[in-house]
Protein backbone atom coordinates (compact mmCIF):
# COMPACT_ATOMS: atom_id res chain seq x y z
CA UNK A 1 0.00 0.00 0.00
CA UNK A 2 2.80 2.40 0.87
CA UNK A 3 4.68 1.62 -2.29
CA UNK A 4 1.70 2.58 -4.42
CA UNK A 5 2.02 6.19 -3.27
CA UNK A 6 5.46 6.59 -4.86
CA UNK A 7 6.66 6.32 -8.36
CA UNK A 8 10.07 4.73 -8.48
CA UNK A 9 12.46 5.72 -11.24
CA UNK A 10 15.66 3.94 -11.94
CA UNK A 11 18.63 5.74 -13.53
CA UNK A 12 20.02 3.67 -16.32
CA UNK A 13 22.99 5.89 -17.14
CA UNK A 14 24.36 9.42 -16.86
CA UNK A 15 26.70 11.79 -18.63
CA UNK A 16 28.54 14.53 -16.72
CA UNK A 17 28.87 17.97 -18.28
CA UNK A 18 31.29 20.56 -16.92
CA UNK A 19 32.72 23.81 -18.13
CA UNK A 20 36.03 25.42 -17.25
CA UNK A 21 37.96 28.58 -17.90
CA UNK A 22 41.33 30.04 -17.03
CA UNK A 23 41.32 32.82 -14.46
CA UNK A 24 43.59 35.37 -16.11
CA UNK A 25 43.71 39.16 -16.04
CA UNK A 26 42.95 39.38 -19.75
CA UNK A 27 40.87 37.67 -22.45
CA UNK A 28 43.60 37.10 -25.01
CA UNK A 29 47.27 36.14 -24.98
CA UNK A 30 49.29 39.31 -25.67
CA UNK A 31 51.68 37.37 -27.91
CA UNK A 32 49.49 35.28 -30.24
CA UNK A 33 46.24 37.25 -29.59
CA UNK A 34 44.27 34.01 -29.32
CA UNK A 35 41.78 33.72 -26.43
CA UNK A 36 43.21 32.26 -23.23
CA UNK A 37 40.31 29.81 -23.19
CA UNK A 38 41.49 28.62 -26.57
CA UNK A 39 45.01 27.44 -27.27
CA UNK A 40 48.10 28.90 -28.90
CA UNK A 41 48.27 28.69 -32.72
CA UNK A 42 50.56 25.66 -32.57
CA UNK A 43 48.18 23.54 -30.46
CA UNK A 44 44.93 21.75 -31.24
CA UNK A 45 43.31 21.44 -27.80
CA UNK A 46 42.97 24.04 -25.05
CA UNK A 47 43.45 23.16 -21.40
CA UNK A 48 46.21 21.05 -19.91
CA UNK A 49 47.96 20.60 -23.26
CA UNK A 50 48.36 24.34 -23.72
CA UNK A 51 48.52 25.85 -20.23
CA UNK A 52 48.96 29.45 -19.15
CA UNK A 53 51.90 30.72 -17.15
CA UNK A 54 52.35 33.82 -15.09
CA UNK A 55 55.41 35.98 -14.61
CA UNK A 56 56.36 37.65 -11.35
CA UNK A 57 55.26 40.88 -13.02
CA UNK A 58 51.75 39.28 -13.08
CA UNK A 59 51.50 39.16 -16.88
CA UNK A 60 50.21 35.93 -18.29
CA UNK A 61 50.71 34.08 -21.61
CA UNK A 62 50.27 30.67 -23.19
CA UNK A 63 53.37 28.77 -22.02
CA UNK A 64 54.28 27.92 -25.62
CA UNK A 65 54.14 31.59 -26.65
CA UNK A 66 56.29 32.99 -23.84
CA UNK A 67 58.86 30.17 -24.11
CA UNK A 68 59.16 30.76 -27.85
CA UNK A 69 59.77 34.45 -27.16
CA UNK A 70 62.30 33.87 -24.37
CA UNK A 71 64.21 31.36 -26.51
CA UNK A 72 64.51 33.93 -29.29
CA UNK A 73 66.13 36.48 -26.95
CA UNK A 74 69.89 36.25 -26.55
CA UNK A 75 70.71 39.04 -24.13
CA UNK A 76 67.80 40.04 -21.92
CA UNK A 77 64.67 38.03 -21.27
CA UNK A 78 61.97 40.62 -20.81
CA UNK A 79 58.21 40.43 -20.37
CA UNK A 80 56.62 41.43 -23.72
CA UNK A 81 54.06 43.60 -21.93
CA UNK A 82 56.05 45.57 -19.33
CA UNK A 83 59.68 44.92 -20.36
CA UNK A 84 60.68 43.93 -16.84
CA UNK A 85 62.99 40.95 -16.54
CA UNK A 86 60.85 37.84 -17.03
CA UNK A 87 60.73 35.46 -14.05
CA UNK A 88 58.24 32.62 -13.87
CA UNK A 89 55.93 32.93 -10.89
CA UNK A 90 56.43 29.93 -8.61
Amino acid at each position, binding site marked *: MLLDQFNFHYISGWTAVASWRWIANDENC*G*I*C*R*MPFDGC*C*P*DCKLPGDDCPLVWGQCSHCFHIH*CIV*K*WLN*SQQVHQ*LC*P*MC*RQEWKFKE
Partner: protein
Amino acid sequence: MASMEKRLQKELLALTKDPPVGVKVNTDAITKNLAEWTVDLEGAPGTVFEGENFQLQFKFGSRYPFDSPQVMFIGPNIPLHPHVYSNGHICLSILTDDWSPALSVQSVCLSVVSMLSSCKEKKRPPDNALYVKTCSKNPKKTRWWYHDDSV
Protein backbone atom coordinates in the same frame (compact mmCIF):
# COMPACT_ATOMS: atom_id res chain seq x y z
CA MET B 1 53.75 29.95 -41.00
CA ALA B 2 50.31 29.22 -39.62
CA SER B 3 50.71 31.16 -36.37
CA MET B 4 52.00 34.24 -38.23
CA GLU B 5 49.00 34.18 -40.56
CA LYS B 6 46.52 33.70 -37.71
CA ARG B 7 47.83 36.73 -35.90
CA LEU B 8 47.97 38.88 -39.01
CA GLN B 9 44.36 37.96 -39.88
CA LYS B 10 43.27 39.10 -36.42
CA GLU B 11 45.22 42.34 -36.70
CA LEU B 12 43.83 43.06 -40.15
CA LEU B 13 40.26 42.52 -38.98
CA ALA B 14 40.73 44.79 -35.95
CA LEU B 15 42.46 47.52 -37.98
CA THR B 16 39.81 47.61 -40.70
CA LYS B 17 36.94 47.51 -38.20
CA ASP B 18 38.29 50.10 -35.79
CA PRO B 19 41.23 52.04 -37.29
CA PRO B 20 42.99 54.74 -35.24
CA VAL B 21 42.72 58.32 -36.55
CA GLY B 22 45.07 58.97 -39.46
CA VAL B 23 45.85 55.29 -40.12
CA LYS B 24 44.36 53.43 -43.09
CA VAL B 25 45.25 49.93 -44.21
CA ASN B 26 45.21 49.17 -47.91
CA THR B 27 43.09 46.01 -47.56
CA ASP B 28 42.70 45.12 -51.24
CA ALA B 29 46.42 44.62 -51.74
CA ILE B 30 46.75 42.51 -48.58
CA THR B 31 44.18 39.87 -49.50
CA LYS B 32 46.62 38.75 -52.21
CA ASN B 33 49.62 38.54 -49.90
CA LEU B 34 49.18 38.66 -46.13
CA ALA B 35 52.95 39.00 -45.58
CA GLU B 36 53.15 42.46 -47.12
CA TRP B 37 51.02 45.44 -46.08
CA THR B 38 50.81 49.05 -47.15
CA VAL B 39 49.40 51.51 -44.64
CA ASP B 40 48.46 55.13 -45.38
CA LEU B 41 49.41 57.58 -42.65
CA GLU B 42 48.26 61.17 -42.24
CA GLY B 43 50.45 63.81 -40.65
CA ALA B 44 48.76 64.79 -37.37
CA PRO B 45 46.94 68.14 -37.18
CA GLY B 46 48.91 70.88 -35.44
CA THR B 47 52.30 69.35 -36.36
CA VAL B 48 54.81 70.20 -39.10
CA PHE B 49 53.41 67.30 -41.14
CA GLU B 50 49.77 68.42 -41.02
CA GLY B 51 48.03 67.84 -44.37
CA GLU B 52 50.74 65.45 -45.65
CA ASN B 53 50.14 61.80 -46.52
CA PHE B 54 52.67 59.02 -46.23
CA GLN B 55 52.85 55.34 -47.06
CA LEU B 56 54.37 52.79 -44.71
CA GLN B 57 55.33 49.36 -45.96
CA PHE B 58 55.31 46.33 -43.64
CA LYS B 59 56.95 43.02 -44.53
CA PHE B 60 56.38 40.11 -42.16
CA GLY B 61 58.63 37.08 -41.87
CA SER B 62 57.33 33.64 -40.90
CA ARG B 63 58.54 34.21 -37.33
CA TYR B 64 56.31 37.27 -36.75
CA PRO B 65 55.43 38.31 -34.01
CA PHE B 66 58.61 36.86 -32.47
CA ASP B 67 60.64 38.76 -35.07
CA SER B 68 59.85 42.39 -35.81
CA PRO B 69 58.38 43.29 -39.18
CA GLN B 70 60.44 45.17 -41.76
CA VAL B 71 58.96 48.69 -41.77
CA MET B 72 59.84 51.60 -44.05
CA PHE B 73 58.33 54.57 -45.83
CA ILE B 74 57.65 54.08 -49.54
CA GLY B 75 56.06 56.16 -52.29
CA PRO B 76 56.45 59.73 -53.46
CA ASN B 77 56.43 61.42 -50.05
CA ILE B 78 59.11 60.33 -47.56
CA PRO B 79 58.76 62.55 -44.47
CA LEU B 80 61.57 65.05 -43.94
CA HIS B 81 62.48 64.00 -40.41
CA PRO B 82 65.82 63.65 -38.56
CA HIS B 83 65.16 59.91 -38.06
CA VAL B 84 63.88 59.11 -41.55
CA TYR B 85 66.41 58.57 -44.34
CA SER B 86 65.61 59.65 -47.88
CA ASN B 87 65.34 55.97 -48.94
CA GLY B 88 62.49 55.48 -46.43
CA HIS B 89 64.47 53.72 -43.68
CA ILE B 90 63.40 54.70 -40.15
CA CYS B 91 65.66 54.87 -37.10
CA LEU B 92 63.21 53.73 -34.42
CA SER B 93 64.26 51.32 -31.68
CA ILE B 94 60.98 49.35 -31.44
CA LEU B 95 61.60 48.17 -35.02
CA THR B 96 64.73 46.24 -33.99
CA ASP B 97 66.32 46.16 -30.50
CA ASP B 98 63.21 47.11 -28.54
CA TRP B 99 60.71 44.99 -30.48
CA SER B 100 58.23 43.00 -28.39
CA PRO B 101 55.72 40.40 -29.63
CA ALA B 102 53.06 42.37 -27.77
CA LEU B 103 53.53 45.18 -30.31
CA SER B 104 51.44 45.17 -33.49
CA VAL B 105 50.91 46.92 -36.81
CA GLN B 106 48.65 49.37 -35.00
CA SER B 107 51.15 50.17 -32.25
CA VAL B 108 53.99 50.56 -34.78
CA CYS B 109 51.85 52.97 -36.85
CA LEU B 110 51.01 55.00 -33.75
CA SER B 111 54.69 55.13 -32.73
CA VAL B 112 55.68 56.35 -36.18
CA VAL B 113 52.94 59.02 -36.19
CA SER B 114 54.03 60.08 -32.71
CA MET B 115 57.68 60.22 -33.81
CA LEU B 116 56.66 62.47 -36.72
CA SER B 117 54.50 64.63 -34.46
CA SER B 118 57.29 65.51 -32.04
CA CYS B 119 59.40 66.89 -34.90
CA LYS B 120 59.85 70.67 -34.88
CA GLU B 121 62.18 71.15 -37.83
CA LYS B 122 61.91 69.26 -41.11
CA LYS B 123 65.33 67.93 -42.01
CA ARG B 124 67.12 64.70 -42.95
CA PRO B 125 69.47 62.84 -40.61
CA PRO B 126 72.98 64.39 -40.73
CA ASP B 127 74.49 61.18 -42.21
CA ASN B 128 71.78 60.70 -44.85
CA ALA B 129 74.03 60.87 -47.93
CA LEU B 130 76.50 58.29 -46.63
CA TYR B 131 73.81 55.98 -45.21
CA VAL B 132 71.64 55.70 -48.33
CA LYS B 133 74.76 54.98 -50.39
CA THR B 134 76.04 52.17 -48.17
CA CYS B 135 73.01 50.58 -46.46
CA SER B 136 71.29 47.25 -47.18
CA LYS B 137 67.89 47.26 -48.87
CA ASN B 138 66.50 45.74 -45.68
CA PRO B 139 66.47 48.32 -42.85
CA LYS B 140 66.61 45.48 -40.29
CA LYS B 141 70.14 44.67 -41.47
CA THR B 142 71.34 48.10 -40.31
CA ARG B 143 73.04 48.23 -36.90
CA TRP B 144 71.10 51.20 -35.66
CA TRP B 145 72.54 53.39 -32.95
CA TYR B 146 69.68 54.87 -30.94
CA HIS B 147 70.88 58.01 -29.23
CA ASP B 148 68.27 60.73 -29.65
CA ASP B 149 64.94 60.42 -27.86
CA SER B 150 63.94 64.06 -28.37
CA VAL B 151 62.19 63.73 -31.76
